[in-house]
């Protein structure tokens, strides 16, 4: 029987947020890339919340952008509302979040993919991996076509053996009723990959015309919009925005839920997957936080071309009739008409500890994976991994070193290190508290941290790199100037200080000393800083942060030095842990199973004690393993 048989460099399975970044990275690096999806119409689909960014996720988007990924640019093209969250808090936790027009987002990303050289999109379900002696050599599709490749990236999202559930209704589909991928799991298992089953959920979508917004609080976007991408000119994104709305559940809502709990598939045991704690269904919230008399409900538009509204805060898997009653008990939703029911979705994913830090399977060379397939959750987490997996698949084919970001360089580094090192029982979400060096890993300096790496890989062009170097230089010069500019106690200065609520000067002070005062900042002092050059706002912002928080930043840099020392001590991939004397049994098992790449990574594995780490260090420096 004849069949289609093709030879390509990189295969990407899936066209969600991970798949898009992976395919773009690989193709942009010049490799012949094929991206498979079960539906070309669902490229870059946002099946849950209609926004990109948010606390810590906004950081990820900025980092993706700095490395040459697409997500930031795409949301800048298609957002309908934008907000910088946590503005009143420290610069490390400022986080950008934008409401997306979902269909625009999807269409715009599709156009980018279609116009990318070396990239082909195919609507086909990949059903089988071809692995020869531990090396991935190709994939097979449902139709029997074979694509030989030198590397592949699995980004199957929530589609593997997906099942959507609400009440007694259970359908074997992916999100939004899309076709599930039912075969790949078996192929993975037969290649020795161990699988988990995770669960997540989404709230109902309600018709806008059935909502009474007069009973809700309006939530507007920021007056001055900050774009995600460092390449987007801020002036081009100042546009009219759409509002979101805030309302609350009440005792009636909670009573409806409580009296129907026995009909919830979660409580009846029909759902077996593990759900995320940070994104609980409304029935979870009512049970777990029984003392709260109300929960917030955010009504967010799904786009400007549709009337569907996303009901944030009320995801559920209760039966249809209970859903309707429960939503209608909320002020403003009394006459709500549901367009799409809320549902829970279960899917197969992997224990990501089978991967190395480059997101390659330890036991299947050339096979990479990213996104929800790796047990994460969220569009941004998926895109971040997709970018790294795509880059590393390409690097592998090109015979280059993989790109590995560590915990002190990027949230992406924290995300991937956590996924491949720590035990994870629920879909993993990024949080700023997971980043131990977060004062250094800010969204405002993502370009300063990562653009150079993107340039070295080949995803950032010469022009952009030069602009970065210019910015770095200007920040240095201006910081230096501010440290050495003395301000005398002149009447003009005293008057300015008084007006800003600050104490007058006794003797002269440097500008930097004034900036360090809690009530002042770089921007407030422009009128008494006569020699100030005209610079872009972002440069002033960096100067301000570097000076104002110098003590804290210095402390974190010191911690990073310590951290790097341990990360630099590499463990050979073929180390025989059975030959290491004095390791405790538990540590030996864990180390054998997860094969950390450095002493630092080893120290983060649960069950490996500091003494075990010391033992390992002594063993490696003794040279015993080389005999």
């Amino acid at each position, binding site marked *: 029987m004849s069949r289609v048989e093709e030879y390509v460099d990189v295969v990407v399975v899936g066209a969600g947020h991970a798949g898009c970044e992976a395919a773009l990275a690989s193709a942009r690096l010049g490799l012949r890339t094929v991206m498979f999806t079960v539906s070309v119409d669902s490229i870059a689909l946002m099946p849950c919340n209609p926004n990109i960014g948010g606390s810590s996720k906004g950081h990820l988007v900025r980092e993706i952008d700095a490395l040459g990924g697409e997500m930031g640019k795409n949301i800048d093209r298609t957002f309908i509302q934008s907000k910088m969250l946590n503005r009143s808090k420290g610069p490390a936790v400022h986080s950008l979040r934008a409401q997306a027009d979902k269909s625009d987002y999807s269409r715009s990303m599709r156009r980018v993919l279609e116009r990318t050289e070396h990239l082909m999109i195919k609507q086909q379900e990949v059903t089988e991996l071809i692995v020869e002696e531990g090396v991935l050599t190709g994939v097979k599709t449902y139709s029997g076509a074979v694509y030989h490749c030198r590397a592949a990236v699995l980004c199957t999202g929530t589609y593997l053996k997906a099942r959507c559930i609400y009440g007694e209704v259970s359908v074997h589909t992916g999100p939004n009723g899309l076709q599930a991928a039912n075969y790949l799991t078996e192929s993975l298992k037969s290649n020795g990959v161990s699988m988990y089953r995770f669960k997540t959920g989404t709230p109902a979508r309600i018709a806008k015309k059935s909502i009474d917004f007069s009973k809700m609080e309006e939530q507007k976007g920021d007056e001055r919009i900050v774009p995600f991408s460092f390449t987007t000119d801020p002036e081009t994104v100042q546009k009219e925005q759409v509002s979101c709305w805030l309302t609350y559940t009440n005792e009636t809502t909670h009573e409806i839920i409580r009296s129907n709990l026995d009909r919830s598939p979660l409580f009846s045991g029909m759902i077996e997957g593990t759900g995320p704690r940070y994104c609980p269904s409304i029935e979870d919230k009512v049970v777990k936080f029984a003392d709260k008399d109300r929960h917030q409900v955010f009504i967010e538009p799904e786009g400007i071309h549709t009337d569907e509204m996303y009901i944030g805060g009320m995801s559920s898997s209760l039966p249809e009739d209970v859903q309707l009653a429960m939503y209608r008990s909320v002020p403003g939703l009394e006459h709500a008409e549901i367009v799409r029911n809320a549902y829970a979705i279960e899917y197969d994913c992997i224990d990501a500890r089978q991967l190395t830090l480059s997101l390659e399977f330890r036991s299947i060379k050339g096979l990479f994976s990213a996104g929800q397939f790796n047990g994460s959750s969220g569009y941004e987490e998926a895109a971040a991994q997709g970018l790294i997996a795509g880059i590393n698949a390409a690097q592998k084919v090109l015979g280059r070193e993989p790109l590995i970001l560590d915990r002190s360089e990027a949230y992406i580094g924290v995300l991937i290190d956590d996924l491949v090192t720590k035990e994870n029982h629920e879909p993993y979400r990024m949080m700023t508290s997971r980043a131990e060096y977060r004062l250094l890993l800010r969204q405002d300096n993502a370009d300063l941290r990562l653009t150079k790496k993107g340039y070295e890989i080949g995803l950032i062009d010469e022009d952009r790199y030069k602009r970065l170097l210019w910015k770095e230089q200007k920040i240095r010069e201006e910081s230096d100037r501010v440290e050495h500019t003395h301000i005398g106690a002149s009447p003009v200065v005293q008057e300015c200080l008084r007006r800003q609520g600050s104490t007058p000067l006794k003797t002269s002070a440097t500008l930097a000393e004034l900036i360090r005062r809690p009530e002042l900042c770089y921007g407030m002092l422009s009128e008494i800083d006569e020699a100030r050059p005209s610079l872009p706002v972002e440069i002033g912002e960096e100067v301000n942060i570097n000076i104002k928080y110098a003590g804290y930043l210095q402390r974190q840099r010191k911690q990073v030095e310590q951290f790097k020392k341990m990360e630099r001590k590499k463990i050979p991939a073929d180390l025989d842990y059975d030959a290491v004397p004095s390791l405790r049994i538990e540590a030996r098992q864990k180390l054998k199973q997860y094969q950390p790449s450095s002493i630092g990574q080893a120290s983060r594995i649960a069950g490996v004690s500091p003494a075990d780490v*010391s033992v390992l260090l002594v063993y490696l420096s003794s040279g015993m393993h080389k005999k």
Partner: protein
Amino acid sequence: MYIEQDTIAAISTAVSQSGIGIVRISGPEAVEIADRVYRSKGGAKKLCEQPTHTIHYGFVVDGDETIDEVLVMLMRAPRSFTAEDTVEINCHGGPCAMRRVLDAVLKHGARPAGPGEFTKRAFLNGRIDLSRAEAVMDVIQAQNEYALQCSVSQLQGSVYEAIKGLRGRILYQTAFIESALDDPEHISLDGYAGQLKEEAEALHGDLQRLIASADNGRLLREGIRTVILGRPNAGKSSLLNALVGEERAIVTEIAGTTRDVLEETINLGGITLKVIDTAGIRSTEDVVEQIGVARALQKAKEADLLLYVADGSSLPDENDRRILGLLGGRRAILLLNKSDLDLVVTPEQLRELTGNQYPVITVSAKEHTGMDQLVDTLKELFYQGELSFNDEVCITNARQKAALISADESIRRVLESIVLGLPEDFYSIDLMGAYEALGEITGEAVGEDLVNEIFGRFCMGK
């Protein structure tokens, strides 16, 4: 060469009541730190100006106060045990002074050495032959086990509880801040700084009290851990009373009176013993007594020295045989008690029964006879080096105190940040610092604690 950036210190000899001991400092700042606590007789000598491998007479001082008269040995890198700059302070004033010398060194910039850390550094710096790597690894692992055992078992129960309580409070505050940062639209921090200030002040006060008790040595139970064992009514409590010299344990003629474990620190002939009286060991139906017996068995396992009290007025029974089984290979002294009554067992019989492994002394706990002999036997064991009051106790105390101080510093930084009006995300960085430092004392790593607390306590998102 493997160069560490910090300087470590520990008492590097066994601590005995009357002996001379050495506090060792190793690392790039060793000489500098030593200079901060050292004063020569004339007061003018600086160690940093002295040649390597020289010995200097003088004093260790803390501010104006002289702690001990000492000899200081200076060994510069690489010609020292660790191949780092090393200073060894020979102290003369006994364990208490030695501990204070260590305290002073730690206060002036050194960090308490981790288990096996001197050995580890010596090895990594090439001072120990590669062929001995295996032995080095054993030392690290063994000392770590011992340190863990010490830090938890020697921590006063109440102190352990107090630290756990503090950790819980700190974690709660951090989780609150973090949940608000992660989900600012659901959780607000308005007015929170004032609230946290109160809590941080309370935490600061509690930590100060704990640090003070570390100074008084009340954090740890120190001494040779000595456990009195015997079947019910063999006279264990009477023995403890005889040793302590006061009525401490309730003594009656009803077997099974001591239902729990009693503890007393005593000094016999210059040796500090931490004596633990236990419930008599026998099979029993009484639930409370069963618990006492279980504890006694546990204490016996942890002990440095066992004192087995045999009732000489009756023949050994199955309970005695069970206890004798516990002795196997351990340091023990057998006491043939009730010499005031007619003995039906002779010392020779008892000695034979235990394979002639242990010294046997005939005593009457009631009449306080035979006590001198017990003290002599103890001294013999002690000075022959068979028993030592392990230095790990001191270093454990030092490590724990250092951790308390570090936790307190973090809390003070939180207060400072609040006063300065820094944003809330700065508070949680230092709160977590305090949480981690306290975790070093209770032997708990941070892991996913914060994330679990956030999800467990606060209702988040979507």
